[in-house]
């Protein structure tokens, strides 16, 4: 690990100033489960680390508001997963959290850090001698032509097919959640759906956050559609693994007919992937094995298989279909 200087921030403003003024080599640290891990691999090499874990009032979980739920960026994954109101009113959010990582990691990792979790692409994490445009711009992409079983089928480019590994962001995108961020030029609010970029020609630029911007809180609009929701996650093993395919689904039903569906998929794309065409396809339809599977196929439209990952197109479609039937039982 490269040496770095450690500074503990007392306010969000101080933290933002320190990172914005620290140039390329400055990073925020909260739970540390991504950054410190990548520092051990020498994939992240900050010379300055600003500890935001003790900032006041940013760990609150506010569920009392009329219009929205507000999660502080420093709230722990385990606490939000187990919050009774979130379990009851937004099961997809709760499930996306407790089906991620282990309880030890969920006790450490914060929601803000979880949104910004970096890819698990082995060529990215593996360092030299593997080419990786995300880690070292211009070096190439060892995954293309390499072992791409876990790589993205949607949203990739010639430069990068690394999967966005997070789960919670998939559920948040389905619910039109937004984040408040604070930067050197002030505060702004952006949709979670606008946070992550597709790699294009610059896979090293992963988000639309500006230098020094810090996520302060997550806002989830209050909606009755949350109750009939699920986060369905398919893995190589039953627990403690990243998604081969996942789907966050929510339903608003009028008897047997779908009034509105929300569908976002994870584990398959370079960013959280809202499947609007599949949502539109389902509106006004009855949920049957045929319509749910058709919705799944629609969600995977445009998927581009590599060498070892074509099976995840059908797996993704079936995951969406199964998620719809689980959500249906909660409507």
């Amino acid at each position, binding site marked *: *690990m490269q*040496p*770095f*200087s*450690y*500074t*503990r*921030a*007392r*306010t969000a403003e*101080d*933290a933002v*100033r*320190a990172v914005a003024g620290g140039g390329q080599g400055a990073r925020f*640290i909260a739970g*540390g*489960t991504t950054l*410190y*891990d990548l*520092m*051990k*691999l020498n994939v992240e090499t900050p010379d*300055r*680390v*600003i*500890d935001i*874990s003790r900032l006041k009032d940013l760990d609150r979980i506010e569920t009392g508001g009329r219009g929205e739920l507000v999660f502080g960026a420093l709230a722990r994954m*385990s606490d939000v997963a187990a919050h009774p109101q979130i379990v009851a009113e937004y099961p997809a959010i709760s499930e996306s959290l407790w089906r991620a*990582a*282990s*309880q*030890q*990691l969920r*006790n*450490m990792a914060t929601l803000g850090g979880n949104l910004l979790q970096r890819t698990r692409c082995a060529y990215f994490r593996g360092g030299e001698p593997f080419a990786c445009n995300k880690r070292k711009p211009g070096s190439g992409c060892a995954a293309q032509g390499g072992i791409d079983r876990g790589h993205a089928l949607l949203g990739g480019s010639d430069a990068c097919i690394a999967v966005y590994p997070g789960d919670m962001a998939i559920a948040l995108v389905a619910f039109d959640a937004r984040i408040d961020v604070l930067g050197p030029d002030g505060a702004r609010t952006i949709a979670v759906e606008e946070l992550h970029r597709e790699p294009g020609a610059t896979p090293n630029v992963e988000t639309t956050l500006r230098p020094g911007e810090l996520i302060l809180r997550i806002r989830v609009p209050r909606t009755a559609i949350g109750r009939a929701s699920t986060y369905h996650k398919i893995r190589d093993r*039953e*627990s*403690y693994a990243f998604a081969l395919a996942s789907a966050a689904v929510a339903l608003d039903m009028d008897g047997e007919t779908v009034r509105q569906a929300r569908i976002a998929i994870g584990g398959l794309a370079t960013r959280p992937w809202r499947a609007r065409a599949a949502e539109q396809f389902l509106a006004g339809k009855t949920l049957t094995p045929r319509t749910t599977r058709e919705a799944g196929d629609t969600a995977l439209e445009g998927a581009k298989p590599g060498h070892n990952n074509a099976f995840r197109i059908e797996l993704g479609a079936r995951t969406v279909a199964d998620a719809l039937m689980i959500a249906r039982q909660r409507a």
Partner: protein
Amino acid sequence: MSVWNMNNEPEISRRSLLEGTGAVAAVTVLGADIGEAGGEEAEHVTVTLTVNGHTRSVAIDPRTSLLDLLRDRLALTGAKKGCDHGQCGACTVHLDGRRVVSCLTPAVQTDGRAVTTIEGLAGPGGELHPMQQAFIDHDALQCGYCTPGQIMAAVACVQEGHANSPEQIREYMSGNICRCGAYVGIVAAIQDAAARMRRT
């Protein structure tokens, strides 16, 4: 370097134990008027934490993990280094009463906080914690390397209320890998200990 005192607790040599002597820059606190000698960033930082009920102050390189602090500086080698990347659970300890992986916990972030390791689990007279006894009773180990992490995770699993069925135990213990495959005994031990822990 450390030696063991008569209470079978590690005793820290003067070299590694710095009790606010000012020889080393304290943690820099942004926007605060403390710390930071001469406006320079700290190369070493002093952390003061409670480990198994004892207060410890140690000057560390900020790169140090809590696991390395416990093992190399405080001679508490119960927490094990398996993967060192948060994937195996062998290094599990409790931080302010909650289970964490100490390998991914920068030690500098534990300043002012309380750590419990496997060495701190037994009672004052050395009587085993019900979870330790249950692991023995159910033969819940073979090589034993993952066992301290398994037991610390298991105690927390019960305390969190996540040990109500074999399925729930398997889900909430999935962060602890046992390559000997003692999982059947581990689940049985946790069920047994959970019942005893609820009674006490």
